[in-house]
């Protein structure tokens, strides 16, 4: 059974702490994805971003995404996901996704699936702050109504926001 931990946090993501998460003895692969704030987007110089999220629905949605990934590729995976909210400067980590699995292929697939689905389905919004002093909410992906979040369908253990 998968072990899934999802949190959203206003605090810095501790890259060393995430990276040092130990794999289970039967897991030969640890794959970690970090997303960082870039200094440029669509031709504009970015100095900071602000993430806003609907915490409850966000955590449940990401738990559901992780459960789907585990179900598809590795039912015994350990999955850790942390997403920042609040104001982040260029170079700060906005998201961390860690998957430990028996073999490398499924750990790559799980982390890739989770980040792509977060971008489409997690209720998170990003405001960019530009060098010229302007700000803009970044246009995103419309949420689907039929993709209901059912907490009871999650497999494994999950934790709420921290």
């Amino acid at each position: 059974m998968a072990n899934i931990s999802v949190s959203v946090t206003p605090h810095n993501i501790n890259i060393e702490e995430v990276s040092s998460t130990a794999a289970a003895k039967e897991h030969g692969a640890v794959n970690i994805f970090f997303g960082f704030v870039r200094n440029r987007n669509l031709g504009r110089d970015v100095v900071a971003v602000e993430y806003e999220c609907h915490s409850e629905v966000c955590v449940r949605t990401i738990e559901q995404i992780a459960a789907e990934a585990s179900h598809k590729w590795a039912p015994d995976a350990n999955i850790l996901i942390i997403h920042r909210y609040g104001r982040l400067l260029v170079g700060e980590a906005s998201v961390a996704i860690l998957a430990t699995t028996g073999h490398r292929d499924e750990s790559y697939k799980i982390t890739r699936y989770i980040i792509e689905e977060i971008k489409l389905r997690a209720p998170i919004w990003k405001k960019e702050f530009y060098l010229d002093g302007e700000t803009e909410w970044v246009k995103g992906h419309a949420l689907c109504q039929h993709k209901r979040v059912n907490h009871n369908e999650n497999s494994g253990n999950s934790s709420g926001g921290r």
Partner: protein
Amino acid sequence: MKTVKVKLFGGFKKFIPSGYLELQVQENCGVNLLKAEIQKHLESHSPEFLGSQLVFDSVLASDVEILNDNESIVECASLALLPPVCGG
């Protein structure tokens, strides 16, 4: 009539900086009707919003899940209007 509170996220704050709306709606108001009321409210308070599709590109959510447009709004303690998302 009943009072419905809606929390706004993302780009809506450009038009309603407080991030909250309170609207009077019919007792049997559904999600579709509430979205139409929100659209009217935003258009009346912010001329910039006229013709915007943002409300109709958004979904309403309760504390725990996204609601379908054809659902009625029962006793939701709090509703949220979720515009297109941009996480990661």
